């Protein structure tokens, strides 16, 4: 009775010919090699540090830093801890990266579209921009903006003065700082109201399109509401905002908001450089949409603007997103060139001064690398989610 159950499956191959078994085997070997290599590295470093008498662990983060940093978004002074220097560096890195991503994206899209313009001059100018900017090393461009352009601005006493509120000199750009007064809550209320109204109008416009077919200019009306309602509520509340104007005190300016030249140089260079790559990505994305698509759209009577918006761009985005993601990642990583001109980013502050003063190389490098890895993974994650949303379904 043993041989009652008959196995109807076809006889499988010998284990060493089975692709699944094979791939498991090779993966196991690869993982083992990685762990072995990691273990050798860690073991080696630890025993080296022990022999040189360096203490390990993250206790140093609580010690007093004792050095100044020229720009901080989170409160900081020299009496604070090394842990605080980490946050100062991180927020500075995030600031310049975010500013760079926004500027590079806008500029890159404009130049990418200009590159395809039927106007000869516009197209050629875009081409020259792309070819010049992306073929000069980024570090050189940062130096150019910092040493050749911004350092040659006049000294604080000879500042470029725009209406007594805005000053530009070789120490930076000084802007008035808005200080909210009592009653500013009304303005916040106005802003919230405007946002709610725009959302409401969008929903209503969609419903009306369903019912009557009329297309409401949601975008234009929305922008008008978002601009006008806060302004009106500002006036109604009795202008509850005062400006802290920058003013010359001795040899330098005080008050207001300062954009230091290190930040400006790094931001301009990162944005211009990355924009040249984004422009090429945008151009190839648009070109990847076949001519048949535009023709079909035109043949259906859709005018050029709608053809671009409803047919070309949605398809181009699918091609643009993955390389655009890697440009964003490059921008964040390139922001660490800040060290070269002394912008206090994470690498300059934490992996620079903090590391030099504490000597905790392994910990500091590990933390810094983990931060960059986290930022990169987060960007990739968001871009992947977006990409999944615009992906085209095939069979």
């Amino acid at each position, binding site marked *: 009775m043993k041989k009652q159950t008959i196995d109807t499956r076809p006889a499988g191959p010998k284990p060493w010919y089975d692709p699944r078994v094979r791939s498991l085997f090779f993966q196991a070997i690869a993982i083992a090699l990685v762990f072995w290599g990691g273990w050798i590295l860690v073991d080696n470093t630890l025993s080296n540090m022990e022999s040189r008498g360096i203490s390990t662990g993250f206790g140093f983060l609580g010690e007093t830093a004792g050095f100044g940093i020229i720009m901080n978004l989170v409160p900081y002074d020299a009496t604070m801890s090394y842990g605080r220097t980490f946050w100062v560096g991180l927020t500075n890195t995030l600031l310049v990266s975010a500013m760079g991503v926004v500027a590079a994206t806008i500029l890159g899209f404009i130049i990418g579209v200009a590159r395809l313009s039927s106007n000869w001059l516009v197209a050629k100018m875009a081409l020259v921009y792309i070819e010049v900017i992306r073929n000069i090393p980024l570090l050189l461009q940062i130096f150019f903006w910092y040493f050749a352009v911004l350092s040659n601005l006049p000294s604080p006493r000879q500042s470029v003065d725009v209406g007594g509120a805005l000053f530009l000199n070789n120490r930076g750009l000084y802007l008035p700082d808005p200080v909210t007064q009592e009653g500013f809550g009304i303005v916040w209320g106005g802003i919230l109201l405007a946002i709610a109204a725009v959302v409401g109008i969008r929903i209503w416009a969609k419903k009306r399109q369903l019912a009557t077919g009329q297309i409401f200019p949601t975008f234009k009306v929305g922008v008008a509401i978002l601009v006008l309602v806060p302004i009106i509520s500002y006036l109604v509340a009795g202008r509850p905002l005062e400006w802290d104007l920058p003013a010359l005190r001795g040899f330098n300016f005080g008050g207001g908001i300062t954009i230091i030249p290190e930040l400006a140089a790094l931001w301009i260079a990162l944005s211009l450089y990355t924009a040249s790559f984004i422009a090429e990505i945008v151009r190839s994305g648009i070109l990847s949409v076949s001519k048949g698509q535009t023709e079909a759209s035109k043949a259906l009577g859709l*005018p050029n603007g709608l053809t671009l918006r409803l047919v070309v761009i949605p398809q181009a985005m699918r091609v643009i997103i993955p390389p655009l993601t890697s440009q964003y990642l490059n921008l964040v990583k390139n922001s660490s060139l800040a060290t070269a001109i002394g912008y206090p980013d994470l690498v300059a502050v934490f992996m620079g001064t903090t590391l030099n003063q504490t000597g905790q190389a392994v910990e500091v490098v590990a933390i810094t690398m983990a931060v960059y890895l986290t930022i990169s993974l987060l960007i990739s994650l968001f871009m992947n989610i977006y990409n999944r949303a615009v992906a085209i379904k095939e069979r």
Partner: protein
Amino acid sequence: MQTPPKDQPGKKPGIIRVEGMHKWYGDFHVLKDLNLTVDQGERIVICGPSGSGKSTFIRCINRLEEHQQGKIIVDGIELTDDVRHIDTVRREVGMVFQHFNLFPHLTVLENCCLSPIWVRKTPRKEAEASAMEYLERVKIPDQANKFPGQLSGGQQQRVAIARALCMKPKIMLFDEPTSALDPEMIKEVLDVMIELAGSGMTMLCVTHEMGFAKTVADRVIFMDGGEIVEQAPPHEFFTNPQEARTQKFLQQILAH
């Protein structure tokens, strides 16, 4: 020449009028002195050897290509550089392409509703209901929520026809609608086109399907070297071609 629809009441004569039309690609003279009048409800088949300018010609009729000399008047509107005229004409002229050119990022239903909603300003519900009617007419209502990439070639081409019809055009242009299809799918597309011809649609059709020409065409036009060499009702055209070039072409194509 007498074509049956001309005599029917309510049919506009000369819904398409092409007069002394020339087109060049750079130095290359593609279309030479074309003259053609198509009445409403007329069904025209255009054939001719490869490179003879058939595609270029019908693409001039909805201004996907520009002509440089002569006149093209569609439904009373002359095609010039004026963008408003071009958009008006394109709303009344549907086109079906050899390679379907469906929008891959939209579902079948969205493909059909796009232009009615944005150009004709039809309420979405109405546009969708009307699109479903046309999808039923081309016999694929069950595919409405699929994406073009999930359909067979024949199904895609039928969606393309439905999409063009959703604009309720007065004229339909077809540029070799079956030549990218496998033989078993050609029939399903031709059946739809024959049904459409029966409904009184004005049709200009570039095709090598001579069976289709014999069944539905009011007139067959033979083009060669950028010229209209000969035009005649199908029976005359196939049994008694006048020009030597037409005879040679027919011999080649019917030899298959």
